[in-house]
């Protein structure tokens, strides 16, 4: 379906070029164009575009403004650490380099508006000026008066200017307490599966035929679509997975229906494995080949700890996830029965494994450690220093102030699978000692 962009104020050939650059976004571009109107006409003071990441908001706006050669200034809030940077950029883009030097050091909004008002009649606008602000959600964290002024900039500077805000987050979260001028809100819908297929097939790889490539993309989409619909992520995946497909299936020149089946069988296990590492961006694209040659474990499992450190970690895990009153039952030879009162029975629903680790004092850790370690251990500095190195490795987290030297508190920051693997290496059955698995 190729709807075309039409607008009387702009050259139709240029519009055709523009429409080709944005494959599935022609209707949104049409709406924007009709809002912008002819270059000489006034447009609504502010427009708010929202939509998911990689739905083409910046792309459409920037293509429209640049190819139709409209005066505009594009600013990204991520780059503007201070407000002054934003003002400088805008003045530079709209009025030229000399005006941005007119701004005083650490300019306020008042200075910006004043200089704009001075410059506007000097270069009279027969075209609407546009200020595009990306990642507008960061405006909320900047000065509180910045957002209300930007949405009504047209009336404050008395000039034909429109501010376009692009964001992922809906407008309801932007509204200040006492209200502000409401912009016109436009939604950029996400791409459908067919759209994604069409767009991804446009990056043609030279060594593959188009049909094979589109079959490959189909398979990739089938695996990843339920998890991720972000165009940029999918493009990254296509690029990295391309290197992984065995060369044999790629160089087939005679393609039949059965070949797609072969392709599927070859690629599918690679894609499933990619879900574990490449999709999560644990590894960068350069070393993704190395990862696939190895067994595919993530870096986390390659930690080697000394013998006592392992027991310290196990003791820390037990201290974090067992309530203190149950220590007696697990670690003493002659314990009495623990009576469960009514209160305890009612509140046992959420296991500690859902709520997270609890902090424990050093004494408790050492008490559990001494009872868990099978040989007799003398309390020496080497044991204590291993606790500090566990904190440095971020397997334990230290809570409380650094000044509390006599009673430090810790929390265990390790997952159940990891601690199980470690306790297997020292022949310790940790599940028997966990309260939640009784």
């Amino acid at each position, binding site marked *: 379906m190729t709807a075309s962009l039409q607008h009387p104020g702009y050259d139709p050939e240029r519009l055709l070029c523009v429409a080709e650059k944005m494959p599935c976004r022609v209707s949104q571009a049409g709406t924007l164009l009709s809002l912008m109107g002819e270059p000489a006409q006034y447009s609504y003071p502010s427009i708010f575009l929202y939509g998911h990441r990689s739905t083409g908001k910046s792309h459409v706006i920037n293509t429209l403004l640049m190819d139709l050669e409209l005066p505009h200034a594009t600013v990204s809030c991520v780059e503007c650490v201070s407000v002054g940077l934003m003002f400088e950029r805008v003045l530079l883009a709209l009025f030229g380099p000399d005006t941005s030097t007119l701004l005083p050091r650490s300019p306020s909004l008042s200075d910006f508006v004043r200089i704009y008002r001075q410059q506007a009649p000097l270069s009279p606008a027969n075209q609407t000026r546009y200020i595009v602000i990306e990642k507008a959600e960061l405006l909320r964290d900047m*000065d509180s008066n910045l957002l209300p002024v930007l949405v009504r900039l047209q009336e404050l500077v008395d000039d034909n200017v429109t501010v376009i805000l692009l964001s992922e987050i809906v407008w309801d979260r932007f509204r200040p307490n006492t209200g502000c001028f409401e912009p016109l809100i436009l939604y950029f819908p996400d791409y*459908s599966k067919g759209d994604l297929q069409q767009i991804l097939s446009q990056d043609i790889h030279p060594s593959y035929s188009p049909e094979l490539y589109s079959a490959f993309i189909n398979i990739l989409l089938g695996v990843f679509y339920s998890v991720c619909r972000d165009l940029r992520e999918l493009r990254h995946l296509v690029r990295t997975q391309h290197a992984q497909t065995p060369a044999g299936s790629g160089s087939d020149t005679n393609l039949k229906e059965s070949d797609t089946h072969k392709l599927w069988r070859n690629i599918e296990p690679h894609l499933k494995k990619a879900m574990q590492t490449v999709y999560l961006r644990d590894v960068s694209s350069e070393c993704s080949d190395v990862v696939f040659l190895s067994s595919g474990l993530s870096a986390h499992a390659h930690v080697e700890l000394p013998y006592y450190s392992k027991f310290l970690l196990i003791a820390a895990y037990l201290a974090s996830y067992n309530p203190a009153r149950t220590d007696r039952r697990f670690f003493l030879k002659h314990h009495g029965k623990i009576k469960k009162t009514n209160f305890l029975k009612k509140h046992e629903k959420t296991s500690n494994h859902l709520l997270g680790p609890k902090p424990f004092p050093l004494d408790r850790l050492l008490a559990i450690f001494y009872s868990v370690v099978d040989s007799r251990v003398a309390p020496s500095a080497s044991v204590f220093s291993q606790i500090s190195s566990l904190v440095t490795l971020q397997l334990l987290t230290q809570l409380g102030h650094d000044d509390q030297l006599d009673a430090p508190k810790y929390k265990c920051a390790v997952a159940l699978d990891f601690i199980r693997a470690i306790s297997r290496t020292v022949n310790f059955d940790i599940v028997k000692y966990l309260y939640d698995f009784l």
Partner: protein
Amino acid sequence: HLQVQTLLRERLCHQQLPQRPEGVDSQHKHLMELLKRTAVHGESNSVLIIGPRGTGKTQLLRCVLAELLAEEDVDKTLLQVHLNGLLQTDDRIALKEITRQLSLENVVGDQVFGSFAENLAFLLEALKKGDRSSSRPVLFILDEFDLFAHHKNQTLLYNLLDVSQSAQTPVAVVGLTCRLDVLELLEKRVKSRFSHRQIHLLPSLSFSQYLQAVQAQLHLPDTTFPDTTFCYDWNASLKVDKSVEAVLLRHFNSTKDFRSLHRLLMAILCRVSVNNPTIKPADLLDASRLLSADAMTNVLHGLSILELCLVIAMKHLNDIYDGEPFNLQMVYNEFKRFLQRKSNSLYNFELPVVMKAFEHLQQLEVVRPVDAAAAVAARAQREYQLVRLMLDHSQIMEALQKYPQCPTDVKQWAASAFG
């Protein structure tokens, strides 16, 4: 048809002044009288114009000013200072702006010299030296008046109102604000110097007046418009029928002010093009639907299936635990229970993948951490941080209806936690 766009855009977007704003005749007269007393008779005054956003306070003031300045002698002698609470966030900046706008002697080009105290003393002296007969009246217009009340010690307000009380240079202080309780914000000494004159602009149109206003906004002037046949056709097509009335009634019931009306009309105006040169009721329906669509439901439409499942799991947790905050581990647990029931191997994802989806939801502000500062501090173990879901039941169910190719078992799961 080009001229239609130009004309209407001027009216709707650029807030062109109407000849006479509707429905505010008494306020217009009141303000006109006050300003005339300052400008012509040399009497000092202060007044506050109060009204919710979009009801036309600035428009009223500009109309009155335009009418006032139409008189020759007023135009020559009246000095105006326009300040805005959003721009002049500090008394220092405000004072510099006043000095600039009045072109006092300590302004060279654009630079204002001297410290804050010096400037203030200079300004007050300049204002106090005059008298009723020989000095020019000054009109101070303070937009977003409530923001000036947040400055330190309210020095600017105190001084301006003080000057307006003492009989020296005729000074009029006009404040515009959207807060109805603005007087509570003023300090005692400032409040006592204020004349307590308030002009309230409350939207009090009835529905039939509203309909008339809509037609008036879209009406093309017969006399000045070049293409008379087009103009006639256009005005003829502005008849109100049942569907149009229903849509406008819904709009009227949610908000009566003119700004949202202008937004609606602007959205309709965009559909006017060479291909369809007149406005049809269908345009109005479309525009209304576009503007009143729930934003969060739109956002939910673009989520992946895994993220949608997480949202449903959170909804169930909210139902079971009565809105208590939860963390990712609990949500994952709930999701795994669903998977066990359905014996579906399609969605068997590992915790890191689920965590990435969860973080995406956090980025979209569908879920928000309960304690934002602690969330930033504790980078490790994000799966145990407590969060809250920012959607309610109806939004989720509506999103599920519109979700493209939603698997039926997911829909059934959403409908009941045990299905």
